[in-house]
């Protein structure tokens, strides 16, 4: 027994370190405490139409994807073709939250890369993003018709992640609605 002790300790350590390595890429992702809770209230001007305000209650009644983006954000450029594709597919409306961005730069950026947003709000101060617990762009939220946050994805969203994580959720939400 005594001479096996070093080997056993080594095996336990290796297993623990292995688990650490396996989860290393998701370690910096902080789970949102907002899931299955009401989305925070907001009232923000539209990008390019600073006199028009959109609030949370204006968006009740439909499930939508809230995409946090900025023209300064390099990863958003990588994600953007998928947002365009999602918007064209008509699966659900894509609402933009333009985070700490100059509206003129945001508009120029959308002109260059395409505009997937049915509604695009400007969070110039970043105050609404704090309420949503945003800490890096891009981030995407699924908000249901009752205004509850159902899902959050941190980082670039793509077709695979959408099919694996969001499609089943949308089916669940659809069942909830028809079940009532």
């Amino acid at each position: 027994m005594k001479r096996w002790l070093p080997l056993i300790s080594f095996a336990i350590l290796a297993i623990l370190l292995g688990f650490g390595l396996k989860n290393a890429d998701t370690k910096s992702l902080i789970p949102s405490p907002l899931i299955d809770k009401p989305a925070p209230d907001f009232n923000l001007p539209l990008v390019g139409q600073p006199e028009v305000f959109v609030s949370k209650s204006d968006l009740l009644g439909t499930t939508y994807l809230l995409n946090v983006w900025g023209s300064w954000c390099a990863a958003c450029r990588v994600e953007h073709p998928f947002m365009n594709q999602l918007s064209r597919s008509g699966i659900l409306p894509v609402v933009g939250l333009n985070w700490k961005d100059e509206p003129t730069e945001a508009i120029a950026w959308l002109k260059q890369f395409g505009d997937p947003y049915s509604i695009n709000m400007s969070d110039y101060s970043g105050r609404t993003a704090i309420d949503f617990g945003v800490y890096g762009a891009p981030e995407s939220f699924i908000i249901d018709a009752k205004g509850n946050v159902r899902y959050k994805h941190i980082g670039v969203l793509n077709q695979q992640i959408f099919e694996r994580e969001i499609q089943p959720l949308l089916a669940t939400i659809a069942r909830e609605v028809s079940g009532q």
Partner: protein
Amino acid sequence: MKNTLIYLIFGISIVLLSAFSVAAPPLEFDNQTQESRFNKLVAELRCLVCQNQNLADSDAELAQDLRREVLDLIRSGKSDTQVKDFLVQRYGEFVLYRPRLDKSTYLLWLGPAVFFLIAAVVIGLVIGKRNQQFLENQNMPNNKDQKPHDD
């Protein structure tokens, strides 16, 4: 003389450049108590962008915004716990460098004590066993010194 002028121009431009490079206006405090409360809080809160830094040390833009938010909350009369709750509600327990005691952190908080107890029990057993062996050796019948003379 020429050198002095060059140094002077160089010095002035450094001062001017650094004046322009300040990104955010520094926070202003109403009084000493407020400042020390603020400093204590931001030292205990994690910057979400650069996750191994606290809010006090981070230069990330979000950290600047969150520092301002913390000061605004203090100004509006919120307690330290309420300020922490504000951030936990948005970013989760992860923002706290000193995690709270709840069912997901029992192992973290009580783990060291449990390990200490296990170690204490093991050491106690080992010592007890050795003592017993020592005593048994002393009472061994073949130990001539200890053997009682029965003649």
